[in-house]
Each structure stands twice: as structure tokens, then as C-alpha cells.
């Protein structure tokens, strides 16, 4: 059995008081009986450290709304209501719940709880319309999953040969393409905002601290981090972690990349362009051992592009959508969603029998742990995440920075050590949830989940099964139309 991969989570309190879902008020007729502190499992209620006889102010942001304290309070003097700032967090895709849950995971490293039962959406757009299979949940869970049983979350990046040829002496004669082992199907993507603007010292500081935290986390976790190969990310500090860094070269014509740096990296990512293949060759010449990933926007004719690149020998394709999980480069009126497009590309490659020739990285709108599993079920090998990393560093997604306003949580000032641990906690919690899902499905490794659409129920299918019989209408649910 291989050595168990585990992520060491360390509770890391926030620097600023997070915006909680609930506001709690302790009435004046509290008798300091301490019942609330006894029944609260989230440490919202505590006695004052300096005087145990009195109750401390409730730590509101930790409240999950389980109402235990409300029910048990002998004086009925506690009040819970939804926080006023809470509903203003984020937007319709990055909901307050998502942001808050990621904060919680980054602080505690624990899997999230939703308090009074899971009221998650069982329908809706995108990943929300997928329900994962939990048929094996009766098997020994928890202890088994996190203890005795080994569930592997390792994925490989690179081309996988269908077979290896040996000569008569038993020596391998096949050309083995380079591969990278990632201990979990999550890598870090470039950040959608807050990225370096060359001249502004604020942004230099941001780079140093935020990217510094991400780089350290990536290195500690054994995963990888994609960064724009611009000037901004050349500082010595990050060079040291270049074994975990994937430079992303977006402007292929100017070749504005640092050749020495490329030589040191295990993997390089190139933005898709017409003549991307020539640049691929250039990079391969510089660093023959490196893996090349081509970053292709999900959009019109994406299957065609993927097919072409795969036949051209590209080992890794990074398909991306916008921040909210919608196609970027598409002429259709109704933009497709990451879940449908991934299925489409994956299915196309399977049909062509070339699926294992290429690794598919999918990114854009991956907001929760379950999205990772669902993207893989749709056919991705692994995912790349962006915003949740900023959430781990307390980002409130207020978008003030995009309007050149001051960041309310002063992201640029994060301590890289502190930030790295917060990211590690978040990823630790996400990985545990992935393991829970795999365990509930009876799977032992995440690689077997890829494209396993049978492991999920799709709302479209249920609707079709149920209502087509009733209304006998010819409605096509094919995502291709």
C-alpha cells in the first residue's frame, strides 16, 4: 500500500471578523447559566475567559443556525436573525452560502455543516442539477474512509499509453511520455482579479503575499499552481517553488517568457491560438521533459479544437469557462454550462477512442468541493480552482478592488504563512468531502470516477423520464442542440 497522503489542517482564525450568516443577540435578562455554551458545538457561545461567571459576546460568524441555544435557553433571551450584510455577499453564482462555507473550511479545515439539515438545491442550473450516487453510504463510513480504508485521490497529468511494448530482454521499447502525479484532482488556477499591474507597489505586495501564500500551499500540498508568465512573477521567492509552478504564456507572438524559468518547470501552459503548435515545439525544445498544456476556452467548436490538438500530440488540455461556469467563446444565445460542455468534450474523445491520449483540466466556477466530483463525473481528469483560494484568504468578493477601492480585508497584507495554512485547510476539507463522496459510491480511487455519469442522476433525465410519458412532447434534452 502506498504511503497515505494526508493534509494536515490546523485551525487558523481569520484576521477580520467574517460576515456571518446570523446575528445573535443576548438579552439583558441572561442569567449566565451557560446552557448555550454547553449545547453549542460550534463555539459560538462561551463563558468569558477573564470571568467565567459571565457569558462572552457570541461569536456570531460561527453560528450555523442549528437553534440549539434558542431551544435550550431557559430564559428565552437569545435571538437569532439573518445577518444584514450576509445577503449582500457575492452574487447569484457565488452565493453568500458558498463564500461563507469556504471561509469556514479555510478556518477550521473541517467539512462544512449547514445547521438545521441540508437544504441544498436539488435542482437548478449546472452542477446543482446533478445528484451524486450515495448507494454505498451504508458501508462503514467515516472511520473506514478516513482511517483504515485507503481511497486514493491521485490523478496523473499527461498522456497515458494504452499499452507498453517490451523487447526480448524485457526492456521497455515504447516511448514513455512524461507524466505528473498530483495527489488530488485540484490545482490552482490564475486569479481572475487582483493580479499584478506592473507599476503599482500595492500590486507588487499583493503578488508577494497572496501568490506567496498560494505557492507555499501548492508546494506543501504537492499540487500545482498556474501563474501568468509575465514579469510580475519572477521574484526570487517564487523561483524557489518553481517545481510546483506552471507558467501560463498567454501572448504567444511576443514570446515574452523567461527561458531559464521554462527550463526549470515540469509543466507549461500555453494559451490556445491558431499557431499554438509551433510554440509548443519551441517549449519542448527548451525543456524536453516538460508537459505542455494548452488552455482552450469552452465555446463554439471546442470538441473540434480538442480533437485537433489531441491528434497533434498535445498531452494536456485545460478547458476553461468564465467565473460563473458559463462558456466564454460562444455565439449561441443561451450559453452552455461547464457541466454540459465537459460531458460533450469527454464524450467526443471517447467516441474517437482517444480519451486517454489527453488529460482534461477543467476550470471556471468550481466553487465547492462537490463541484470537483461532479466535474470529474462529467469527464474531467482534474479541476483548477481560483476564487475559493481568495476566499481562503478572507476575500469577500465585494469586487471593490476592481474599482480601485481599498480591500476591506487588506488581502495584500496577508501573511504568506498564515495564508498558506488557510488554503491548506480549505483543500483539506474539500479533499475529505471528495473522499466521502467516493466512499459513499464504493469507489477506491478518484481516477475511476472520470466520466462515470452512471454515478450521478441528472435532473434533465428525470424530467424526461417523468414528463415525456405524460405530455408526449418531443423535447430534446441533448446538450448539443
Amino acid at each position, binding site marked *: 500500500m502506498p504511503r497515505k497522503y494526508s493534509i494536515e489542517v490546523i485551525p487558523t482564525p481569520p484576521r477580520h471578523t467574517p460576515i456571518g450568516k446570523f446575528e445573535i443577540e443576548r438579552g439583558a435578562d441572561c*442569567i449566565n447559566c*451557560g*446552557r448555550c455554551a454547553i449545547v453549542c458545538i460550534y463555539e459560538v457561545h462561551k463563558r468569558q475567559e477573564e470571568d467565567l*461567571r459571565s457569558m462572552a459576546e457570541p461569536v456570531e460568524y460561527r453560528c450555523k443556525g442549528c437553534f440549539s441555544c434558542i431551544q435550550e435557553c431557559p430564559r428565552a433571551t437569545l435571538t437569532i436573525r439573518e445577518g444584514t450584510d450576509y445577503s449582500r455577499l457575492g452574487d447569484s453564482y457565488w452565493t453568500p452560502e458558498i463564500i461563507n462555507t469556504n471561509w469556514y473550511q479555510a478556518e477550521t479545515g473541517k467539512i462544512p455543516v449547514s445547521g438545521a439539515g441540508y437544504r441544498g438545491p436539488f435542482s437548478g442550473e449546472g452542477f446543482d442539477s446533478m445528484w451524486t450516487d450515495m448507494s454505498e453510504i451504508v458501508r462503514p463510513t467515516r472511520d473506514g474512509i478516513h482511517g483504515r480504508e485507503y481511497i486514493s485521490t491521485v490523478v496523473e497529468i499527461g498522456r497515458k499509453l494504452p499499452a507498453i511494448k517490451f523487447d526480448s530482454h524485457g526492456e521497455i521499447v515504447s516511448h514513455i511520455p512524461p507524466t505528473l502525479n498530483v495527489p488530488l484532482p485540484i490545482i490552482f488556477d490564475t486569479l481572475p482579479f487582483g493580479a499584478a499591474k506592473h507599476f503599482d507597489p500595492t500590486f507588487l505586495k499583493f503578488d508577494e503575499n497572496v501568490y506567496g501564500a498560494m505557492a507555499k500551499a501548492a508546494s506543501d500540498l504537492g499540487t500545482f499552481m498556474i501563474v501568468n508568465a509575465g514579469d510580475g512573477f519572477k521574484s526570487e521567492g517564487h523561483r524557489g517553488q518553481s517545481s510546483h509552478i506552471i507558467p501560463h504564456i498567454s501572448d504567444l507572438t511576443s514570446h515574452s517568457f523567461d527561458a531559464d524559468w521554462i527550463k526549470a518547470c515540469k509543466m507549461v501552459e500555453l494559451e490556445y491560438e491558431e499557431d499554438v503548435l509551433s510554440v509548443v515545439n519551441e517549449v519542448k525544445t527548451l525543456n524536453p521533459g516538460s508537459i505542455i498544456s494548452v488552455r482552450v476556452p469552452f465555446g463554439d467548436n471546442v470538441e473540434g479544437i480538442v480533437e485537433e490538438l489531441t491528434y497533434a500530440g498535445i498531452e494536456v488540455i485545460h478547458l476553461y469557462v468564465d467565473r460563473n461556469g458559463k462558456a466564454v467563446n460562444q455565439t449561441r444565445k443561451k450559453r452552455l454550462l461547464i457541466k454540459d460542455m465537459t460531458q460533450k468534450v469527454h464524450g467526443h474523445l471517447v467516441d474517437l477512442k482517444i480519451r486517454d491520449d489527453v488529460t482534461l483540466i477543467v476550470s471556471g466556477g468550481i466553487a465547492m468541493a462537490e463541484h470537483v466530483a461532479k466535474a470529474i463525473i462529467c469527464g474531467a481528469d482534474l479541476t483548477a480552482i481560483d476564487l475559493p483560494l481568495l476566499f481562503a484568504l478572507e476575500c469577500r468578493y465585494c469586487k471593490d478592488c476592481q474599482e480601485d477601492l481599498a480591500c476591506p480585508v487588506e488581502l495584500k497584507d496577508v501573511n504568506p504563512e498564515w495564508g498558506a495554512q488557510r488554503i491548506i485547510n480549505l483543500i483539506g476539507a474539500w479533499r475529505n468531502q471528495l473522499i466521502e463522496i467516493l466512499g459513499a459510491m464504493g469507489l477506491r480511487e478518484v481516477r475511476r470516477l472520470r466520466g462515470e455519469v452512471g454515478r450521478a442522476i441528472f435532473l434533465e433525465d428525470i424530467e424526461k423520464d417523468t414528463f415525456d410519458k405524460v405530455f408526449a412532447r418531443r423535447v430534446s434534452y441533448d446538450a448539443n442542440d
Partner: protein
Amino acid sequence: MAETVKTRIEELVGDEARVIDGDFERELYSMDIGEVPFAKQLFDTTPELVIMPKSVAALKKIVRFANAEEVALFPRGSASSGLGGVVPTVKGIVLDLSSLNKIVELNREKETIKVQTGVRWSAIEDFLCPETLALRAYPSSFFSSVGGWIATGGYGIGSYRFGHLKDQIESIEVMFPSGEVKSINSKEKEFARFFGTEGQFGIVLSAVLKLRKKPEKSLPHLIYLESAEDAFVFITGLINAELKPNHIKYMDASHLEEANTFWGEHLFRLKDAVLVEFEEEEEATKFRDFAEGRGILADDYLSNYLWHERLFPMKKRSDKPTPLACEMVIPIANAVSYLKEAKIFLKRCGLDVEVESHIVGKDRALLMLSYMSDVRVPKTYLTHMALIPVLTRLGLKFGGVPYGIGIWNTPFINDKYDTKTLELYRAYKKEVDPNNILNPNKFFAVKTKMSNIPGILFKTRIFRPLIRISATVTPILGKLASSKGGLKEESVLEKIVYSCIKCGSCAAVCPAYLVTNEESVLPKNKLYLAKKLLAGDVISKTDSDKIFLCTHCEMCRDVCQNDLDLVTAWTELEKLLESQFGTPEEAITEFVSTLESSEDYWRFVYKPFFQKESFTKEIVNTDILSFYGG
């Protein structure tokens, strides 16, 4: 001697009793609610030991021991009387009976409840909350013990309808000084001897109380009348009209004025008034017809408010902290004449008197005259105190009898009981308590320190001329004293320590007292410690630490009869002690963990009376009994 007695008693009873010998704690047991500055000069009021027996068996051992060794025993309930009935006279042992407080048996068919006498009336009411039965009459000091009410007055709320306490008890169990326990039922001639005799003959261990069906309604009515005369005419008329009120109470205009001052609003008319409570709608309707034309009926919420206040009779009414009162049972027919004379007399002394009277029978009223004084001004205070026997003496003239005896009313024993009864009691005392160990040197006759020379003053023959002198001199002295003006107040704590009347209401709701069972954590006793501290006395660290055993739950403030700002007081007191001894963190940590692991505490916290529903004048028909669990 104390040491050896302590060791021997501890050997005798083991864990079955708590033996308390701390200096400060013993001092706490040296007084009742009466503020008598010279008590310590006359008697050895500080007991040598305080024992809190946890079982009847343990109590028996202690009583036998005391009888054999001739050590005086002073049984004690919640000490909410002020006549010295529980105050030790010759050191001895105080028996704190508050741990013998079990509710033994509820008999739903016979509608009776058997309780140990250490139980508080409020606790019985609380226990009966889920039942269909309720108490008959109860004392206005609702937090006092059953045993205490048996040994003292026996008149209270509901006495008009249900009569004296002894009419509501089926039987009692008594432990005599010999250790013998005897059950006595109400038909036996011995029975009545234990009521109002302040533990002279034996320790009442348990009582079977008669209950009744829970009333469906509480319909208090307040009627304004033009004068005290009108009020008592009204009351007499009401009694003759054969209506069935539960309770009738008279209040004079200054009583209502006090309520107005308390609310800072002109709620009540400044008239004499009668508060009548009915439980049946029908009777109340009849009553309203009866009252029509005789007086003015007040708004419902005002009636309800005053009805609620019946259990808080000691509300503060002036800037002076110490209340003094004279309580007498007097024929209704003479009540007005007595009141008139008493008021004229007190006015001459420069005192504002407040009168309240519970009608306790068809022809008798329990009359309470009270006025405020200030114990910090000793000379004036003593003069004011001297007026109580004068008022009592005046009452006797109108056929009244003092309500209780204790120490300070001993000169009136001959007026309370006729010669025959008294002789019988004396003989009975000799028979059951030949060594005179139970509550000695009071009631029958006072015996003081210094070869009883000061005690002579308490002899009826000497006492009467004395008070006659005092009646002539006091008005002059009183006027002189009251013209001096008040003292200036410094801190809240300072103000409060002298305002606490030690009524003990706080004991029923104090969670710290519940889990520690320590007299010194009680709010009233914390204030006593504060008083000593402010006076410059030395406080030990052990006693100081106990002050911090407090959850700051503020329940004491809610029930405080005097409406004292105890919350601020505790903060100030703790600050004072912290500057001397530092914060006793260990003691606090241990206290909190004891509290949280105490099942009693959690049961207590979830009791209905903790579910605060504050009484405001907007809430009509909210009754204090529902507040405390009824």
C-alpha cells in the same frame, strides 16, 4: 468548648449534617430581619455553631446531644420575622432547617400535601404548578419557610376565606428536646400549642397541609374610599353582605402614594383604598354591584398591580433605609379609632406612617403600621424604635394583641395570652423541655447578659411606665432628630447596604445558594459583609472569596422587595474586594463547574418562575403566582 462540641457533633452525625463554625458565618446567624443595635449588648447573639441537618435522624442526634449537654438550640427557618424569635440569646447552636425541605407526599384524593417544614411556600406553589391543586392561605413573605410561619404568625393572604394557618393543617410531626418524635393531629389539644409559640416546645418537622382546587381566576378589585373610617365601614358592610372574597386588604393613602412614587407617575388616587380579591366571576359581579355608590372602582390594571405587590410588602418608600413596623391583630370595629390615635401620635413625632391591613376573619384585622428610619443615626433610630412598644401599648387599649412575641415583644406576653393559657404553656414547657434548651431566654421571659439586670426592663410592670415616659418624650426628641436632615450617599453599594431589610426573598432564587448551600453567598448576607467592609472591619479572604460565588444572574434584583440595585452593588463590592485580595480565580472556576454539573441547578433554572415575564402595568390579569409557578 466550641471545638469539642464541634468534634463530638461531627462524630455523631458525619455527613448527615453540615457544621458551620466560621466567624463571619456564625455572625450571619446572629440576627433576623429586625435591626436592633443593642441586641449584642443584651445577649450573646452569635451562636457557637451552626448546624444544618440533612436528615431527621441527624437532627435527632443533635437534639439529644444538646439536651444531654444542656446546650441551647435555636431553630431557624428563613429568619424573615423581626422580633428576635430566631436570634440566639446565649450562644448555643443554631439549627438551620433549610435542608429539611422535602415535599414528602401529595395526596390528590384527600387534597393534602405533606412537607418538611424547611420548605419554602414558593417552592410548594412551584411544585403544585402542574397539579390541579393549590395552597389555601400563604404568608405575604412568600419565600419564607412553612416551619417559620407555623412558629410565628399564621395569618396571610387568603386568611379571610381560609382562616388561620392551624385551620389548614391536618397534622404535624414534632421533635421534642428528648429526641422523641410525635405526630399530632389537629383534633388533639396539644396541636394548637405549636402555632405562634416560636419553637418553645419542640421542632416541627413536617406538616400535612390542606389544599384546594386551583382557582380558575384571580379577580382583584381596588376601591377608593374617602377615609379610613369609610374604608372600614365598607369592609364591615362587605363582610355582612355575605360575599365570598378570597382576601380583603386595606391600604391607606400613603401606601398608594408610595406606588405612585415608585412608578414616577400619578397612577393611583391619593385616597384610602380596599383591595378585594375574588376567584369567582359571579361573586365579583355581586361585589361590583355592592361597591357601586360606596366607593370608586379603580382600573383593572391598577388592581392587578397591587394584587401582585401583595407579596412584596416591604417596598422602600423614602430616602431613609430602615423600616420599622408594629404589627397587631385588632378587632375590626376598633381599627379606625386605633389608627386615628396612632397617626396623631406618630405625626407628633415627625414621622410619616403607612398603614396596611389584612382582614383575617369576620371580626379581626392584622394591622401593620410602618415608618422609615435610619439605623446609621443611632440616637434617632433608638427613639424611633422605642415608638414600637408605644404603638403596641396603644393597640392593646383598643383590644389588639401583638402579632408575634420573639424577644422584643416579650413584655406583652401577658396581653397576647390569657393567664390560663400562659400557665398551661409554662407547665407544658417544663414538661417537654425540662432543661430549657429550646429557644431559651425569650418569649416567656427575657433573660439577658450581666445577671439579667437589663432584662428587668422587659418585665411588664417596669416596661409599661417606661414606655409611658417614652411616649411623652419621643415626640420632642423625634422632632429634633428628624429636623437634622439626611446623610449624603456615596456609592450605590453604600446606599444599599443599609437599605437591605434581610427579608430573604433572594434566597429562593439564588442559584449560588442552591448549589453551595452557604449562607454567606446569599445576597442579603453579601450586603451584610459589605456593610462591615465599609465600616472598616477586617474581612478574611475566605469570606471574601465567597462573595465571588455569584452568577450575576440578577434574579435577586428581580425579587428584591426593596427594589435595590443589587447588580451594581455586586460589581462595586467585587471591585472593593479585588483590590484587597485579588480575584479568587480558582474558587470561581470550581464554582462554575459545580454549577454546571449540578442537576439541581438545571432543574432550578428551568423552573417556571425563571421564565421571566416582567410585570408591567400593561399586562392585566398577570398574577404573581403564575409568575412563581402557579
